[in-house]
């Protein structure tokens, strides 16, 4: 399924200290699922950080759904309908799974409104809870909704983080290694509902992954990032048979034998 | 005015050296040691006791410093290291508790009467119409010496290890750094600095059990101004605080000192929240 360009990254460069991490990255997302792969240290998470507003690029531009998000702050980018997850889940351990997911909706309200809701009550609290439970149900997490988040295994926590990002109904979703540390079953519990969600809501998803089988099954479009530049672009099969990509993953000399 | 500046440098050096001890422990063990000044005051009382029993000054002082170092090492090993993995709040409360214990122990053992420690060097000399006492010279000189010493120290293998441990407790251990040793050295060193500082300070004024209290706060203020990551910054912050205090006290009135100091701190923190000289790590990524 093809959706209109939700993300456009043009010639983005980023340096940390003397370290030139991103050297002119160009990327557009036109599909539901775009994979971003590449060896470790290629700069994939840095690219996420740039787009989500955590890091400012030294040059280049980022456009989200047509709007300029290059210099936007994290909260501004979030307000544009962007959600993300992290390599290690950033949940609050001592509250329930449901409360963690709720934060995805709560963050959208202003501080003032939150205080007002706390002191004067509001009807939206119940509605939000229902929404959160609904998302958890889609990912088969209903029976742990009221459990302390810290007591869940890592895999489930990662899925909870995805739910938290989804409950805000983002138009653009970044998943940073969602399958890392997940067993086969967990991956299915993540992928199937995710596909269904995207089908229904039209979200564009960009996935950083090392699990190439997952990428092949899920993504229609893949970009390969290596040492700060995109070295290949296309369908998963195209990318993974690209000699430069093989060289990047396996080292020089192997490519010749392929 | 120069006279005032000299006096300001004197009190400022005291703040500065104590600030060095604060920053040292903070950098190495990630603990804000509220007991820094008390840890230095106890050995000074021990020194006084020795002097009172007839010991020679130049014998009593080294013994006192050793006592201070041992005290610091014991505190670190028994009370601090076991709780390093706990919450930050626990560390804060622990060092606060230690300062109360040490302060009240001094009071119980020696009472609240002021005493004197007479240094074998007294008198003063003139430079271009302004007087400097040997005490002042001693404090200012030693302060600078300590700071340079610490700067040099951070460049040695020991110092580098210490900074590595401050950033991250796990990786240095994997690389073979004896983290426990680093902790001990830093606390011992800070205790020594603190002892010398309190000795010079009480020598120049009076020795009482309450001497430590006001100092620790000034040390914290100095560390705040200078930016916590930087020993130099804390040192210069202390000097600046002392000079500022004295000048405003002299030129405006004694009442203005606190207000001036406050405005000073607030302005600096608003302009540069990481402090003036810090290597700017306002928040970790």
């Amino acid at each position, binding site marked *: 399924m093809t959706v209109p360009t939700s993300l456009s990254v043009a010639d983005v460069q980023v340096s940390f200290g003397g370290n030139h991490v991103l050297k002119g990255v160009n990327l557009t997302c036109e599909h539901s699922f775009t994979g971003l792969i590449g060896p470790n240290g290629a700069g994939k998470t840095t690219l996420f950080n740039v787009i989500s507003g*955590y890091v400012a690029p030294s040059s280049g531009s980022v456009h989200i759904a047509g709007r300029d998000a290059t210099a936007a702050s*994290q*909260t501004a*980018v*979030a307000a544009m309908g*962007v*959600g993300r997850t*992290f390599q290690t*889940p*950033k*949940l*609050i*351990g*001592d509250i329930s799974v449901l*409360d963690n997911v*709720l*934060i995805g909706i*709560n*963050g959208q*309200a202003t*501080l003032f409104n939150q*205080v007002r*809701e*706390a*002191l004067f009550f509001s009807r939206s609290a119940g509605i939000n809870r229902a929404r959160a439970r609904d998302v958890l149900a889609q990912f088969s997490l209903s029976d*742990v909704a*009221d*459990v*302390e988040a*810290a*007591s869940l295994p890592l895999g489930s926590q990662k899925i909870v983080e995805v739910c*938290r990002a989804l409950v*805000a109904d983002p138009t653009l979703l970044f998943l940073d290694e969602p399958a890392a540390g997940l067993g086969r079953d967990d991956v299915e519990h993540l992928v199937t509902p995710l596909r269904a969600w995207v089908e229904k809501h039209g979200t564009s998803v960009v996935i950083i992954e090392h699990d190439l089988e997952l990428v092949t099954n899920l993504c229609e479009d893949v970009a390969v990032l290596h040492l700060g530049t995109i070295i290949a672009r296309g369908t998963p099969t195209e990318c993974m048979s690209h000699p430069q990509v093989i060289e990047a993953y396996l080292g020089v000399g192997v490519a010749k034998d392929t | 005015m120069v006279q005032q500046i000299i006096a300001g440098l004197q009190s400022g050096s005291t703040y500065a050296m104590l600030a060095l001890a604060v920053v040292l422990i903070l950098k190495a063990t990630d603990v804000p040691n509220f007991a820094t000044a008390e840890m230095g005051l106890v050995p000074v009382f021990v020194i006084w006791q020795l002097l009172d029993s007839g010991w020679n000054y130049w014998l009593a002082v080294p013994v006192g410093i050793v006592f201070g170092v041992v005290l610091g090492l014991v505190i670190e090993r028994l009370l601090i290291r076991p709780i390093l993995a*706990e*919450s*930050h*709040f*626990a560390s*804060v409360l622990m060092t*606060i*508790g*230690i300062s*109360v*214990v040490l302060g*009240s122990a001094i*009071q*119980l053992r020696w009472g609240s009467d002021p005493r004197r420690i007479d240094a074998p060097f007294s008198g003063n000399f003139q430079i271009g119409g302004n007087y400097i006492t040997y005490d002042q010279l001693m404090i200012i000189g030693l302060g600078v010496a300590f700071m340079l010493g610490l700067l040099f120290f951070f460049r040695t293998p020991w110092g580098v290890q210490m900074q590595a441990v401050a950033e991250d407790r796990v990786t240095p251990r994997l690389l073979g750094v004896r983290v426990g040793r680093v902790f001990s050295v830093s606390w011992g060193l800070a205790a020594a600095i603190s002892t010398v500082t309190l000795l010079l300070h009480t020598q120049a004024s009076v020795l009482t059990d309450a001497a430590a209290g006001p100092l620790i*706060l000034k040390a*914290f*203020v100095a560390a*705040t101004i200078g930016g*916590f990551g930087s020993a130099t910054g804390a040192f210069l912050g202390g000097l600046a605080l002392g000079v500022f205090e004295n000048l405003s006290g002299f030129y405006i009135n004694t009442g*203005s000192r*606190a*207000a001036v100091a*406050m405005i000073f*701190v607030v302005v600096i923190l608003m302009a540069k*929240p*990481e402090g003036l000289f810090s290597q700017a790590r306002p*928040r970790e990524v």
Partner: protein
Amino acid sequence: MAGSRINISAGLAVRIAFGLASIALAFLLPSLLNPYRLFLATLIVVFATAGVGLVIIMGWTGQIALAHAAFMGIGAYMTNWLFSDVGIPWVFSLVLSGLFAAVVGALIGYPAARLRGFYLAIATLAFAELITRMFVEIDTVTGGISGASIEIIQLFGLDSDQSHWYIAVILAIAVFWGAHRLGTTAFGRCLRMVRDAEIATGSLGINATNYKLFAFAISGFIAALAGGLFGQLLTFATPDTFRTTLLIQFLVVVFIGGVTQLTGAAVGAVFVITSRELLQDVGDWQRFAFGLSLVLAVRFLPGGITSLVGLLKGLRRTDAHEAPTVARAQ
């Protein structure tokens, strides 16, 4: 899972029971106790109220803010000045001083929000010290070093001790209720995100700095309200009252309860005031005994004394650190 369900219900039941008992006692207490005991009870309530402010800023937002005693001083001095010298009715003076303290809190929070952990603690301590120095300097308002005599208020028909008690109770109920509401709703969840996973706040639309500023302001507000009452109880305020000794007592108040629980502030207040009374008998050794017990308590029960209760019951998480560690894994 069933275990955690029981956990939540037990906590809730304890809270409801405590609330009911408090309300019942509130009416009856003045007639049951002699004036000195009533004074102690009022002190406990005031300390618990102030403790709530610390729970919000330290327990929920994760900022080690040590200017609490100074804010109480602002409340005590300013309430008295507005009431006694300017002539504003006492309750309005109290609230106004609270608002002033909130502004000061936000001002302190502004640079402090950019500092992490201990640097923040030390900076707030520095600010606190400077505030108390100001108390000495603006002697037209505060009476300087020698202090200010607090004008005592009386509610209609009641003597001052009883008035203090009822005002304290009403204030405590309002503060505890407000804090409870804030803590269990969206606002509280966002505060905890700032505490445990600040790195992820921006991507969720949460402006961490704003929340920190607000938390600083609220804790200052609450501390000042408690401080105004505290001044009434003291009948005389000197700058020295609001320095480290008082601060340490508050830190112990919230430490007892594990700093994240509102009920902990109440339990801690009872503990601190009663042990203060008990230690009076020890005379000169009082300070030493207090310090030593604090050191031993932190050494062997770093999660606070109520963690001991949890350990015994086996219901609560034994390692108080386990919960946030997962979220902190970076």
